[in-house]
């Protein structure tokens, strides 16, 4: 056993001297802790493509440079990481260096995991090494053409942009107003790697901030992933989580839905595999921490509900084609007043997704539809149907603009050209039907008909 593990073990012995005598129980506890951290780190979102083969990899990442496949991380010696030592494991997680020094693509969020404690890495190691079943399933080879397939530039990238574990830990040691905030920050910035999607990236692909320590860009909304635009998680009143209470955030992470909105896109996986399994205490810590952030956009006027459009629609006045389409296609669930019937059907009035400067998610939901994931505490899977085959680019632009500018919402107009361009670049996501919600396995994806 290499050094970090020994340190962790010593630390554990020091903290829990009584537990040292009950070795099997301690081992079980360690494995359970690892299982919990694997959920908190959402490893399965990428590394479990098929729920019958947990952690056997295979999830494709369609990137501009080609297709990457998430590797098998079961302890199978050939297909997985069975020949990794704990030090190899730690290096891969926190430094982005695979066994034998091969640099990992930063699709693996090692710049975030760098912040994880030795004890947590040790627990994860114990879980993956001792509890996850070895699976011999091999993953397709990455489809990235030479010269982009060369790995050595990744090393330069890492040196330039990724923090070392020591640097990351320093950020963790900064001052927090409370223990709870510190725990929330650890979970969000470390294992949760929320910033990987929700923080904007520079042209060289590194996240513009890895913690709330640096600047107001952290979690201020990221670039599209699989066609979906991750929202701003900061305290912006209109486009962030400014009007969400802590209990709203907790409910969202537990059940994928709350009175303000419903999960879609990649967040579905993050909730199904990850956050629904966290303790209430940890979810509250995350919520508490998120509420400490400042808005990313200064001077965003607070959203207030404007009843004018609802009144007009209820009187049968349809100001434009967007309104007409809305009444035909959307109002049954989202209502003419835009309040929806949360948590069954999310509100559009005041919804930060709707007011996102980037209308991508809204366009994609209208075209493709979306499935609300069944979770343990909220097993009802609801689906919004897709309208791609029923609505022209112009229709979509009209209805999306109507939604973005009604009930006090004030996001910019979406044009027919915007939708056309979006459709051109996101065909694969539009055609990718929402998963069939059967909640047999942890992920609804494998049940697609």
């Amino acid at each position, binding site marked *: 056993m290499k050094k970090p593990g020994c340190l962790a073990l010593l630390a554990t012995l020091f903290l829990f001297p009584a537990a040292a005598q009950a070795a099997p129980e301690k081992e079980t506890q360690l494995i359970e802790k690892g299982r919990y951290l694997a959920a908190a780190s959402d490893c399965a979102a990428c590394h479990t493509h098929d729920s019958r083969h947990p952690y056997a990899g295979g999830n494709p990442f369609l990137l501009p440079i080609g297709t990457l496949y998430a590797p098998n991380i079961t302890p199978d010696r050939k297909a997985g990481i069975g020949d990794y030592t704990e030090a190899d494991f730690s290096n891969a997680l926190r430094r982005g260096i695979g066994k034998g020094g091969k640099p990992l693509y930063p699709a693996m969020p090692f710049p975030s995991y760098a912040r994880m404690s030795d004890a947590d890495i040790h627990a994860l190691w114990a879980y993956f090494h001792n509890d996850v079943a070895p699976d011999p399933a091999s993953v397709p080879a990455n489809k990235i053409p030479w010269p982009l397939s060369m790995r050595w530039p990744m090393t330069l990238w890492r040196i330039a942009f990724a923090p070392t574990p020591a640097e990351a830990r320093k950020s963790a040691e900064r001052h927090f107003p409370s223990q709870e905030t510190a725990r929330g920050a650890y979970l969000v910035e470390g294992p949760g790697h929320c910033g990987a999607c929700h923080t904007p990236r520079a042209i060289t692909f590194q996240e513009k901030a890895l913690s709330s320590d640096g600047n107001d860009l952290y979690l201020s909304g990221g670039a599209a992933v699989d066609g979906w635009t991750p929202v701003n998680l900061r305290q912006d009143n209109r486009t962030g989580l400014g009007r969400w209470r802590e209990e709203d955030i907790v409910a969202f992470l537990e059940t994928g839905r709350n009175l303000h909105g419903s999960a879609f896109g990649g967040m579905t996986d993050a909730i199904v595999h990850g956050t629904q399994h966290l303790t209430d205490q940890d979810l509250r810590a995350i919520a508490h921490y998120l509420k400490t952030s400042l808005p990313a956009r200064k001077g965003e006027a607070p959203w207030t509900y404007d009843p004018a459009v609802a009144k007009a629609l209820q009187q049968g006045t349809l100001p434009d084609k967007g309104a007409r389409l809305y009444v035909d296609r959307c109002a049954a669930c989202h209502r003419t007043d835009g309040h929806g019937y949360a948590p*069954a059907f999310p509100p559009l009035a005041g919804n930060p997704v709707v007011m996102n400067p980037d209308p991508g998610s809204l366009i994609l939901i209208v075209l493709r539809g979306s499935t609300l994931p069944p979770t343990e505490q909220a*097993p009802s899977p*609801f689906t*919004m149907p897709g309208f791609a085959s029923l609505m022209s680019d112009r229709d979509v632009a009209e209805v999306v603009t109507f939604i973005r500018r009604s009930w006090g919402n004030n996001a910019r107009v979406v044009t027919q050209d915007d939708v056309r361009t979006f459709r051109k670049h996101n065909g694969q996501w539009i055609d990718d039907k929402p998963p069939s*919600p*059967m909640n047999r*396995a942890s992920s609804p994806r494998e049940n697609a008909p």
Partner: protein
Amino acid sequence: MSRKRTDVVIIGAGWAGSILAKEMREAGRSVIMLERGPERRTAVEGSYPGSIDELRGAIRHRLFQNPAKTTVTIRNTMNQTALPYRQLAAFLPGEGVGGAGLHWSGVHFRAAPDDLRLRSHVIERYGKKFIPEDMNLQDYDVTYDELEPFFDKAEKVFGTSGEAYKIDGKIVGNGNVFAPSRSDAFPLPPMQDVHTAALFRKAAAEAGYHPYSMPAANASKPYLNSYGLQMGPCNFCGYCSGYDCFMYSKASPNINILPALRSDPGFTLISNAHVLRVNLDAERSRATGVTYLDQKADREMTIEAELVIIAAFQFHNVHLMLLSGIGKPYDPVSNTGVVGRNFVYQTLTTSHAWMGRNDYTNQFVGAGGAGVAIDDFNSDNFDHGPLGFIGGSPVWVNQAGIKPIAAAMSGGGKSSPRWGKGFKEALVDTYRHSFAIDAHGSNMAYRDVYLDLDPTWKDSYGQPLLRMTFTWKDNDIRMNQYVVGKIEPIMKALGARHYELGRLEYGEPFDTRRYQTTHLGGGAVMGADPRTSALNRYLQSWDVSNVFVIGSNAFPQGMGYNPTGTVAALAYWAAHHIRTRYLMHPGPLVHRA
């Protein structure tokens, strides 16, 4: 042949099967549920706007049984030769996960106390001679008070909307004055009245009757049920009966129970599994499991189980009992045997009112379970003594939304032209300004109305079809005509410009070509006497004690109310006794006298 083992095998993935599956999982038993039809996920096939396609839905029977594979044969009287029911019309059994519970409309009643002990009640009030000679009038051998906790439990799963009249004996609201006391309020407030229901409410009150909001398993508000499952609120779109509900607001097993089971590793749902028979041991006193046809692989499979729950549609339950040899088949000639006995239906007739030409009745809106009813002529809420019949009908406006094809097919009134300009004018006038009032009545059981295996016709699996011998009897026609007569004062109070009363006529046989209702009942009824009932009061087979048969097959008479609420309560009642008694000590829960 492939074999599997489980604690409990359940046949049918409708309400009864899903309730039993949930209860058996709560009791820690492994469950395999077999469904003959395909998987049905409301969130996929039921999503808007694809699901509200009338041609594909109600007309081409998207959610109904495919009679090309198996059906029933029908005849009116014992001296006729029965023929197969090849095109669904009079009744519409469901197929696929959710069963008829997916395509039902959502009217959610509790059985009236008198109806559950109708024979005893009639004898007490009118004397034994009041019962016609060939009528098999029977008690359920379970009382309203015994079922009350299970009615309540079911309503909290279904998210039922309604208004109570009495709770714990105290009058609490504007509900049905004839309804028995409840232990709790409805989980949701009543559905709003559509325009025609409001007209009926006012006119019925003016006529001296007691209108109330029908209890509807259509959610009047978003609802989180007792299993933590979410319903959306009903928006009166009018696509309930015959459709899966895209708003998730009409209760169905698919929305209200199955999502709580699907992630449970102890629960397995196998669709496209057509059960061929329940297997019995050599003494035919114990079931060993079931054999089904895996319709996708075209392969016979056997499941071994400790407990077999037959929970398919009413007549499939009877069919399966006959095919498997569970209980003695009924013979109307010798008047012996029980399986097939007391086959019952309901008497449904519709009257129409045409309002003024400025009064738009908006028949396109509606909710399948909602409406306004009167119970003044239902059950034994009125004196039958001078009337000479047994039974009754609630009368209601249950506007479920008339879709365009249905409107066109029903045309104008009885006297309107059948084609040409006059037809079109009458059609438009009828659609815009008329509405329907139903008498949804009881149907008693008779010695020569029954179910048995057809001697001639076989299904596509090579098994004999079930034969229905059914027609209307004078008692029920008399009842229907009496109740329909009581609609006339309502028509007058409505100020209808024109009205037509629909009623059964003496000598008119049961007509399979016209939709009436899917509320078939009996054939394997519950009761206290094994000579007249196939099941004991816990819906357990008298003859094979590890077989329970759940459904409206247990009803000894067809009641005026829609059956689903009572089926659900009986399912929870049976499950309760299986959980608290049977599983500890398997064997008969009632010993033969």
